[in-house]
């Protein structure tokens, strides 16, 4: 009898808690997206696309990827749209993190990466975001080659004390590379009209 009561109480509590939070999540989601765009992604995008002749945050469009929509930001240089920024998420050491990956569509190279939202340990995995020199390693890598850390036979130096985070960033970048291969024609087509 007591056993049943315990199970029932815990179940009811969890259901109410889960349901309430789901509702709140739906409610706050659009606001959180706006805040993220302004305070986290915006500066990161502008940093990757330094010297762009347009406003890359405003020049965005969405593409349909299966069931989800992906937002693509466009950077134009001297008026010519040439860099597409894709957003992917990876599984880091602590939790999911967001990663922006910029592609130079003219030369088929990585134009840069930047970690946005994350919960990695400050000073170790957090360096993936806080240390621009580390992220700069990805710049200029060809799109047809997978990124790997040196321990796995690649050429990306892992952050010291944060091999898991470094691998996760490489994996997320590779995921973006695959998306780029898949959607390149669509990206190039949409980029012209998106520039503002």
């Amino acid at each position, binding site marked *: 009898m007591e056993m049943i*009561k*315990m199970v029932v*109480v*815990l179940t009811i*509590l969890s259901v109410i*808690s889960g349901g309430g939070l789901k509702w*709140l999540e739906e409610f*706050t989601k659009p606001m959180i997206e706006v805040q993220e765009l302004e305070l*986290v992604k915006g500066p990161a995008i502008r940093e990757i696309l330094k010297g762009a002749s347009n406003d890359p945050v405003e020049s965005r469009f969405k593409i349909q990827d299966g069931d989800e929509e992906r937002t693509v930001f466009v950077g134009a240089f001297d008026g010519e749209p040439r860099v597409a920024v894709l957003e992917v998420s990876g599984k880091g050491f602590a939790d999911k993190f967001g990663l922006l990956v910029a592609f130079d569509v003219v030369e088929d190279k990585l134009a840069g990466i930047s970690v946005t939202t994350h919960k990695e340990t*400050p000073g170790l995995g957090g360096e993936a975001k806080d240390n621009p020199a580390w992220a700069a390693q990805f710049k200029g890598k060809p799109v047809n080659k997978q990124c790997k850390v040196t321990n796995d036979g690649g050429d990306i130096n892992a952050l010291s004390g944060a091999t898991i985070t470094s691998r996760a960033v490489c994996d997320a970048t590779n995921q973006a590379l695959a998306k780029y291969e898949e959607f390149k024609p669509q990206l190039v087509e949409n980029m012209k009209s998106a520039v503002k």
Partner: protein
Amino acid sequence: MAKSLAQEFTKGLWKEIPPFRLVLGLCPVLGVTTSMKNGIGMGLATAFVLICSNILVSLLRKVVPSKVRIACFIIIIATFVIVVEMMMQAFVYGLFLDLGVFIPLIVVNCIVLGRAEAFASKNSVIPSMADGMGIGLGFTFSLAALGAVRELLGTGGLAGDIFGFLPYELPNLFGASFEPFAFAVQAPGAFICLGLMLFLLNLVPSK
């Protein structure tokens, strides 16, 4: 229960003020008090969780079987922590970025669980609410004080805002020639400042 409501409330503000009297929940205390702004933000977030969870734990105290009470408390506390986290992201994202990982860590803050277990699960709703408010405000006050001391020593002034409102700016309180102790806002400085404040508080008898 012979204590009056006012006593339940005020004990958290002085007699049992966390973390100075109850030396509990030190992780966020040391981690986020790099400035007064962060201290207040963290303190109010914890106070909100504490008040809500105290009320709910007290309401459910007769329904929850004692063998699974801790699990139930954790579900309740975790729910409110996620509420705080989402609201912060939606309205004060800058503060959320500063506090970062310490917000989810309120779940395991032993002050919150401690009050649920030691007080709310044994008392009715109104005293539990008073207890939560007292301890919560006391915690906010302590964090703000510690944050202010560290910010003053570390930068020579105070600047920031409270949840996007009430901006304040007091630069160079010690004069322009003051050389800031950057040490005070770094991690070891937290221990030393906390230790000094504990020492000062213990000079005053608690009773």
